[in-house]
């Protein structure tokens, strides 16, 4: 039975491996035909930045991995307007298509899911 699962990515890419490991969980879950949504909360918003050149630090590119998600029919990627603003980021700086929501809508987004897990 297909369930709705929300994975919350709360960490910036690279400094910690948690963002990458959270994404690996998303890719695994997608392969099992679950209905996955991703919420980039707080510093998770930095995962969306375009022009990431992670070859300079010998780590795999987080944005390139995120770009694979549509192939798995994962298209519900969310970020809040407030997290972008507080980080001085505009939508034009993001490297993939995301749905920008209000912080006030996050609680509802979580409550709508069958399962939630944060990385």
């Amino acid at each position, binding site marked *: 039975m297909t*369930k709705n*699962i929300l994975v919350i990515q709360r960490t910036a890419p690279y400094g910690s*491996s*948690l963002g990458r*490991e959270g994404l*690996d*969980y998303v890719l*695994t*879950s997608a*392969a*099992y035909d*679950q209905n996955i949504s991703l919420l980039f909360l707080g510093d998770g918003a930095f995962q969306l930045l375009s022009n990431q050149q992670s070859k300079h630090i010998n780590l795999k590119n987080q944005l390139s991995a995120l770009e694979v998600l549509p192939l798995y029919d994962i298209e519900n990627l969310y970020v809040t307007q407030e997290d972008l603003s507080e980080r001085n980021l505009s939508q034009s700086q993001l490297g993939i298509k995301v749905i920008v929501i209000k912080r006030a809508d996050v609680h509802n987004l979580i409550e709508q899911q069958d*399962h939630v*897990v*944060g990385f």
Partner: protein
Amino acid sequence: MNVSLLILSEPYSSQSSLSALKYAKAALLAGHSIPRVFFYHNGVHTGSQLQTPQQDESNIQQEWVELANEYKLDLVICIAAALKRGNLTVDEANRYDRQQYNIEAPFELSGLGQLLDAQLNSDQMITFA
């Protein structure tokens, strides 16, 4: 009811690992079941049988082993996260031509599908980080 655990913390660097053990014991004593304990990120170090704490310190690997034996717990370490961090069963050691290993049953290495399975088939999944 049933609750699974996701453990992300290094066993001796964070109190979180001790808290997870207490939670697991309390849940089992209350008659709930724990379909799976999944170790990921820094948590993959939890299963190393080489842990040699001082006598007045908890032996975290041993405590999980005892709990697993008593309650038939499923202790799964993420294989991809474990291999890079140096946590191998004898099978993996053979596969990668290593002479040594540090993970034994009841701990086992498996994929992230086991975490998804735990999340889907538990009333709750609690993360300790």
